[in-house]
């Protein structure tokens, strides 16, 4: 799976995800990150793209839950994304990338690794795979 989230200097947000699914999946299987609200979501608070085991991501409505925690509980992007990945999605099944309207970035995951990269206007940039790099 691949995905990208972006926000401009005016707080406009967008998310996109694309995938081939699972190795050896059944023909006709729909259930991966493109499901709106599950693996991909954007509103005026944040934009989210998830990756991992699609069935788990759908059950946990991963992407929408990040936005909902920000909107209804007032959590920051980091707090909301960390809660969803650590408490909602089963272990070893999911990761996500997200940006907020304020230009924050987070990329949590509960798998061994996640191919990921980010950059912000203040000059921060990173490309990583495993958690402790």
């Amino acid at each position, binding site marked *: *799976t*691949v995905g*990208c989230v*972006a*926000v*401009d*200097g005016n707080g406009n*947000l*967008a*998310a*996109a*995800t*694309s*995938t*081939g*699914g*699972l*190795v*050896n*999946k*059944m*023909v006709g299987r*729909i259930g*991966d*990150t493109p*499901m*709106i609200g599950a693996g*991909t979501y*954007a509103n005026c*608070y944040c934009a989210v793209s998830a990756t*991992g*085991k699609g069935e*788990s991501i759908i059950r946990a409505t991963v992407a929408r839950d990040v936005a909902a925690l920000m909107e209804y509980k007032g959590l920051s992007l980091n707090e909301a994304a960390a809660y969803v990945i650590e408490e909602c999605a*089963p272990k070893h*099944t999911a*990761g*996500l*990338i*997200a*940006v907020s*309207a304020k*230009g924050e*970035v*987070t*990329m949590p*995951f509960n*798998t*061994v*690794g*996640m191919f*990921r*990269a*980010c*950059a*912000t*206007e203040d000059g921060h*940039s990173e*490309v990583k*795979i*495993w958690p402790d790099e």
Partner: protein
Amino acid sequence: MGWAIALHGGAGDIPRAMPPERLKPREAALHHCLQIGVDALKAGRPPLDVVELVVRELENNPHFNAGKGSVLTSNGTVEMEACIMDGNTKRCGAVSGLTTVKNAISLARLVMEKTPHIYLAFDGAEAFAREQGVENTDTSHFITPENIERLKQAKAANRVQIDFTQSTPKAGEKASVTALDSQDG
């Protein structure tokens, strides 16, 4: 407040011992795609354009599981999916079950912009792609030798697996109930 961008190329049981010949191209692709996105944002492109642009680039890279390089179904075919969403308007579009569309993400955007619907799948999505003149290609374009081998290994281990997860069953596991082949995931 300022612009920001993040991208991913899949998650899973990525081995730390991944050989350099497999690791380096993926790292290079992440750098390349990030730079494309940064340049687009700096140029004032709307975030919706930026995420489509970056995902198209990732789809065209055979080292990631989307577009060229998509993993294979149990029948050895590809069935690709994509979704795009605009935060301001909450407009969105999604597609599933694509077999010939070169860039699924761009078709998802057309679903969002050119139809009253938000999700098209399989034959209907392919027909819509042809109607819109979206670039298509033979299915073989998407299939890589690496993914043919991964399917063989997954079948041998009787597993369904997420991106980059190794297909060898762990000691003591019953192959038929490992990973995703259990019905509860």
